[in-house]
């Protein structure tokens, strides 16, 4: 067997550790338990949490592992959600026969396909630039989708669009909140496993190598651009899938969900949880949801402590919560 200089790299990604397992088991058991003990509200909170975590995991693939600071990921959430809303709208009110459908597979295909295509086109342009240009350009493309949707009055423009019928799959009904939660949860686990496999593979090594030192990667004959583009497309498609789930969960979609401040929140989730930690985005999503639910219960001005926390975590908490936890337990990445 020939040795590959890349997979020989000793810095293999950390496998699922105990903490991650506790986290996932809790997410599997707690929400249904709360639901059956008469707190259906909390099941909704957890569904949102899991969907946000899923989107953050997809962002983490490029942001954490690839070092590509994408500030436009909310656009993919939106594209995925509109991939449910638009076919349902046309199936209900007519027009645009080619995509009008209640069929969940159509929605799923559209969500992933459109997101991947958008990621491919914009990624091909964005990835030609570095650093701060990349941040701003991804942001600008995200905002482009936002404005485009705002200006299409057929789909409600600013006011948004109500999804009258959830995606229909044979055998299961997403109208049942537990079924929907199960789908979201299993998707999260599957995507975590996928990202785990990707980052551990040769491809993932190249991606992380390109973040650490692009020149060296080029010196050993690797075209970082192509690897990054593939990672960007995978990330976009996964985030679009999260959007598909989000659309089915909220049954109401509006351009507001893809505003650039939403992308900022996704980045906050990834960074606070700990970028380049597999389960970091889940930790981040939990903290984000807790902050949102708790703080917004106390005051309408909850963005103030939230913003302050963000500033403080950047100034003082490097490596995010997962990094801090590793430091406490004496592990380092």
């Amino acid at each position: 067997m020939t040795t590959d200089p890349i997979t020989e790299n000793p810095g293999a990604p950390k496998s699922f550790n105990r903490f991650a397992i506790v986290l996932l088991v809790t997410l599997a058991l707690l929400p249904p338990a709360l639901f059956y003990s008469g707190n259906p509200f909390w099941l909704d909170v957890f569904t949102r949490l899991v969907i946000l975590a899923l989107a953050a995991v997809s962002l983490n693939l490029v942001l954490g592992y690839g070092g590509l600071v994408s500030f436009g990921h909310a656009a993919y959430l939106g594209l995925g959600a509109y991939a449910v809303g638009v076919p349902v709208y046309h199936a209900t009110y007519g027009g645009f026969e080619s995509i009008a459908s209640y069929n969940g597979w159509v929605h799923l295909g559209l969500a992933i396909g459109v997101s991947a295509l958008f990621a491919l086109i914009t990624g091909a342009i964005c990835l030609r630039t570095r650093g701060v240009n990349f941040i701003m350009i991804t942001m600008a493309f995200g905002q482009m989708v936002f404005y485009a949707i705002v200006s299409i009055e057929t789909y409600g423009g600013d006011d948004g669009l109500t999804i009258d019928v959830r995606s229909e799959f044979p055998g299961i009904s997403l109208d049942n909140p537990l079924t929907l939660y199960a789908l979201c949860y299993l998707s999260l686990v599957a995507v975590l496993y996928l990202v785990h496999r990707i980052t551990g593979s040769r491809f993932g090594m190249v991606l992380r190598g390109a973040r650490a030192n692009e020149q060296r990667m080029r010196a050993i004959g690797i075209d970082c651009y192509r690897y990054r583009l593939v990672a960007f497309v995978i990330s976009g498609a996964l985030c679009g899938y999260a959007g598909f789930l989000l659309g089915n969960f909220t049954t109401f979609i509006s351009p507001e969900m893809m505003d650039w401040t939403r992308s900022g929140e996704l980045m906050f989730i990834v960074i606070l949880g700990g970028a380049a930690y597999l389960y970091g985005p889940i930790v981040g999503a939990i903290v984000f949801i807790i902050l949102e639910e708790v703080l917004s219960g106390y005051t309408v001005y909850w963005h103030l402590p939230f913003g302050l926390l963000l500033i403080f975590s950047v100034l003082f908490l490097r490596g995010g919560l997962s990094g801090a936890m590793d430091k406490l337990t004496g592990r380092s990445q």
Partner: protein
Amino acid sequence: MESSIFLIQLLNGLQLGILLFLLSAGLTLTFGIMDFVNLAHGSLYMLGAFFCASLTLWSGSFIVGILLALPLAAAAGWLLEWLVVRHLYERDHLDHVLATFGLILCLDTLVHIGWGPAGIAIPLPDWLNGQVELLPGLLFPSFRLLIIATGIVAAAGLYWMVNHTRLGMLIRAGASNRTMVGALGIDIKTLFSGVFAIGAALAGLAGMLVAPITEASIGMGNDIIITAFVVIIIGGIGSMKGAFVAAILIGMIDTMGRSFLDDIFKLLMSTEAAETAAPAISAMLVYIMMAIILTFRPQGLFPPKTR
């Protein structure tokens, strides 16, 4: 008739371009000299508008309001630099983006607490409320003319400052080699604070000029800041000349697209299709242009020389 509409839209485009330049000038200064990405620049634009609104209502004069609000906006910039921004210069861009995103949330909320959720309209004096006949049959609001004039004066002042004053010399020197300027005995920290405050004042000025048209409202900076980013990306990040050219270009294209694209589309397709497609395309026009320019020139139109 058609040509007068065209001329008016041309002036509107120029006015939008001038406002964008005022905003992106501050971004370019802070990025060029300090390598700092400031998302909260739009919040300074908003603060300027609110300061001006309150001071105008208090003093009864829009001009007094502007004159008093300008130093306040600069002071707000100075304070932000001292409190947060200063501690981030050594960090990477990701940290800049996250921390200034946090600043936006804080400032938006503080304005909400201070001024309430509703927007504030700024009353204009009578001599600014009318219209001016530029050419026979060509009427243009005098306030918009004032915006254009103020912007041009500010741009000229900035050009003079950067190229012909000692401060400008330090700014240019700082942009090309920070460490060396510090080694030559210049107080870099104060210079950075000063530049940040100038940028804040320019952004605030843009906000003050917009507020009488749109009213001062929470989050008003969060939309336009993205367009300002597009401007400095197209212009070449860190290049003042690039920012000016790109700002005018974007202002023109955005305005023209919104006014005339549906007419152009109607020549090519059915009226119904044109009325659906034109708003979406014109909303995306600026970004499409950015994509095209970046495809050919990834560093923008006027990339500054690498350090």
